[in-house]
């Protein structure tokens, strides 16, 4: 469990591509840009579609549901403020095959995580007004 994370955890720096992603997270939503021409959802967020190069991307709110594609357990502290042991997963989101993001797995012991486990997004406040998309078993 990672309720022991310290306040010095690195804060994500929004940029022109990612600002809406972090804004949505601060509101408790998982949001990514979807191409208006071909329908592909891009992660990391992009302003031009990597699949078809169309330039109209629309930010959509995702269900936050997915499954564990793979996972590992961080046993040593390499990042300031992120304390071991901690499960780090790759989540495949239900909206699109191969659409995967990295997260911690909260609400279960690191060794209990399994590939294929159904998960849902939660939003962890790591600094005032800064929330990190995270996942837990559903």
């Amino acid at each position: 469990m990672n309720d022991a994370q310290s306040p010095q955890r690195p804060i994500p720096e929004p940029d022109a591509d990612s600002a809406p992603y972090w804004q949505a997270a601060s509101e408790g939503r998982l949001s990514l840009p979807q191409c208006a021409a071909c329908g592909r959802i891009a992660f990391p967020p992009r302003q031009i579609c990597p699949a078809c190069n169309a330039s109209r991307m629309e930010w959509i709110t995702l269900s936050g549901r997915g499954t564990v594609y793979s996972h590992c357990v961080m046993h040593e502290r390499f990042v300031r403020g992120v304390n071991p042991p901690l499960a780090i997963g790759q989540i495949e989101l239900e909206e699109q095959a191969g659409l995967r993001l990295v997260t911690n797995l909260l609400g279960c012991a690191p060794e209990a995580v399994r590939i294929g486990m159904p998960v849902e997004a939660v939003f962890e406040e790591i600094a005032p007004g800064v929330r990190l998309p995270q996942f837990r078993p559903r």
Partner: protein
Amino acid sequence: MPGWNLRNRAAIVGVGYTPMLRSTDRSLGTIAVEAALAAIADAGLTREDIDGYIGMPNAPSPAARHLDGVDEISAVYLAAALGMKEPAWLMDQSGQPTGAVAAACHVVASGLCNYVLVLRTMYNPVGRRYQEASQTSAGGPLQYGLPYGVSGGIAMLAHWLQRYMHDYGATREALYSVVANDRRHARLNPVAYWRDKELTLDDYMNARPIYAPMCVFDCDIPVTAAGAVIVTTAERARDLRHPPAYVSGVANSLQPGSRIFEISGVARKDVQVAQIYDGFSPFVWNWLERLGYCGTGEAHLYTQDGRIGLGGETPINTFGGQLGEGRLHGMGHLREGVMQVMGRAGERQVPGVQHSLVVNGFVGSHPYFNLMLSRG
């Protein structure tokens, strides 16, 4: 499909390197110049002959400070420190040494340069852990990983390995075959960090987990060291001291694994020895499958029974790999590939090497290069 008009028209003619050290009082710039001078001397040349330079300055450590001459060596720094006069080509690139050699082939074949120096330095930060990230904010690609505890590439490889074990029934015991092969070969390499220490199955299975299922011995050991090679045209190469290592093909990791065999005209069965990038042990399984040495999901079986060892079907990482020698980011693989095709690998020499494969590619999206080196 486009071909490559430079098959065997350029060659590597000299190598230089420094010992693999965990820490040193010597500056990284000093180490870089030492490796450069060693490569120049090995080729039988002088500094005045070198009219081109391609380096890979980036320090990939999450703890890096990116200070020229301290933990990185830029083309500008090296050219000045080595005292190069009027170089016709100076370039920093972001890939591995194999990509720099591929570019150097073009620079000499065009006639712009006679001799191009390719150099890689690596720096083990003093007083900090190599993978330690101490920043308070995470921008660029780090924003999606660092806040979750992902520092460097290990977690991504751990994910790849976990999925591979799940899909194909592979085990950590099976992965030991890759690490043990490296560590066995490292004992025959005088500059290898692990030249004096065997790694037993017990040591491996009981090792500190880092990002489990990856343990500490699945990760290469960070060192401070440099390696360099000299690239010239086939015509000039023939007049120098050593049998040239002709560059017969180049391909990269965004292309199909078979591309290196197609473009070089060298069949996989005609390759006598291969150096396969092993910054993290699972890379070797991934590449053996992509190159077609075995089928998808079969590499964990392929690497057993001495098949990849000296005396085996195709010996792999005969210098000990980065897991046995140290983290030179592909330069160790390149150097050994050259030494094998020149016939200068000493106790590690594979008999009758005609074609020597050097794989610097990664799992994932980095377009890092693979080379085929051939004897004339």
